[in-house]
């Protein structure tokens, strides 16, 4: 009897909208926004607030459809830079739009999840960096699906020996996303947080503004080595992506 009461309580705690989309990507309160796309990506939007994660530490609010409609063409334009074959290789199929995305109370632009082939995006993320943020998060999906290709230790050796990254991206105060005038091996302050963020920042500029990268590496040997490493490593996955 005690066990039965325990399960009844447990089932009530686990009370979520166990619908067909939850069954697939394990995110509740989500509906289809746009299903048919040339690169097979599927766009979903939060129809209600949701909390996910083992400790329910990832939270996001329902999307305002008019807000999403106004931003969707920019979002779609950026995702259309990737073909279906590449997206399959990096295990990305579902883009979930929501607002005020946070992890453990810290606001963030996107949360990638290769296991569920999902990228959650906050459509209210700073519009100045929004497009770059999309590619930044996609890089994290590339890296986690091809960790053997992107060697963080090797990448770190391109820096001056006196430089040290922080232990994690959230335990650093190096958060500014503005492009440095004098790069000295790093495109932004956020690049200095971890090797993974450094790589993701380079990739995001390569996808959104190749000219800037071309200009910056002319007089920055460290950055040039890093960019070459990213290009070389990406070519192992897909020769045509850059």
């Amino acid at each position: 009897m005690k066990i039965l009461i325990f399960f009844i309580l447990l089932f009530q705690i686990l009370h979520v909208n166990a619908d067909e989309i939850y069954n697939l990507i394990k995110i509740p309160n989500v509906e289809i926004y746009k299903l048919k796309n040339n690169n097979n990506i599927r766009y979903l939007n939060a129809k209600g607030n949701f909390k996910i994660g083992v400790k329910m530490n990832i939270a996001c609010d329902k999307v305002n459809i008019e807000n999403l409609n106004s931003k969707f063409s920019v979002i779609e334009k950026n995702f259309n830079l990737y073909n279906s074959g590449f997206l399959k290789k990096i295990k990305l199929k579902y883009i979930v739009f929501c607002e005020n995305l946070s992890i453990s109370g810290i606001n963030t632009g996107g949360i990638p999840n290769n296991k569920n082939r999902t990228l959650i995006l906050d459509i209210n993320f700073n519009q100045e960096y929004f497009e770059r943020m999309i590619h930044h998060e996609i890089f994290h999906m590339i890296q986690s699906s091809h960790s053997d290709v992107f060697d963080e230790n090797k990448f770190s050796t391109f820096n001056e020996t006196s430089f040290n990254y922080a232990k994690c991206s959230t335990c650093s105060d190096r958060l500014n996303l503005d492009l440095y005038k004098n790069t000295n091996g790093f495109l932004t302050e956020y690049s200095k947080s971890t090797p993974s963020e450094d790589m993701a920042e380079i990739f995001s500029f390569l996808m959104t503004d190749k000219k800037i990268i071309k200009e910056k590496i002319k007089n920055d040997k460290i950055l040039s080595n890093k960019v070459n490493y990213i290009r070389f490593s990406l070519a192992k996955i897909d020769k045509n992506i850059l």
Partner: protein
Amino acid sequence: MIKSIKASKSEKILFIFLISLTIFIFTSFFLLKNKCLFVEKNNLDKLKLKISNNIAVMNLECGNVIIELYPDISPKAVERFKILIEKKMYDGSAFYKVSENTFVQAGDIEYGNIDNLDYSKIGSGKSGLGLLKSELSNDFIFAAGSVGFARTTEFDTEDSEFFITLKEIPIYQGEYTPLGKVIRGLDILTKIKTGNKAIYVLRPDHINTFRMLNSN
């Protein structure tokens, strides 16, 4: 000498009211509570189904659900499904995951049998026959009554669990291995107990028997 007493008008009305109330209570408790009352049972003797190697009959509380299997689309998956049916491994299997008017899921051989339900492990059980590679079809539309092999979040993890859609679910296209389609008895599946929006169903309904038609 006992005189017969005629009932007054108000007594007659009271009597009729009591009779009506009794009928109402009886109907509520014994007839309307019977969820299978207005459901077609699909009696096999009356259906005169054409004998085929790809027709399976799932017997539930409310009647028979007739499923046509599609070996041309998913040969390995259908072969596995038939083996599990022929070994009677689905008998007693609980519909532990049910989303109202959306889908029903059963087939956990290890932890999902009604005689041996393990609520803490249900959904993770194995058949003992090994995992299968996903056989995905970009053309198969998961319309109402579609039967698909369930899997974990990873592909190539199909084993024995299956689901049946109760409405069209476009997002499942290319995501799950199709097994077949319900050709009779979809309304029976809508009567299966739901979890009232919870992930799992407590004290779930179950499959009585699951047989290939040619073995009946």
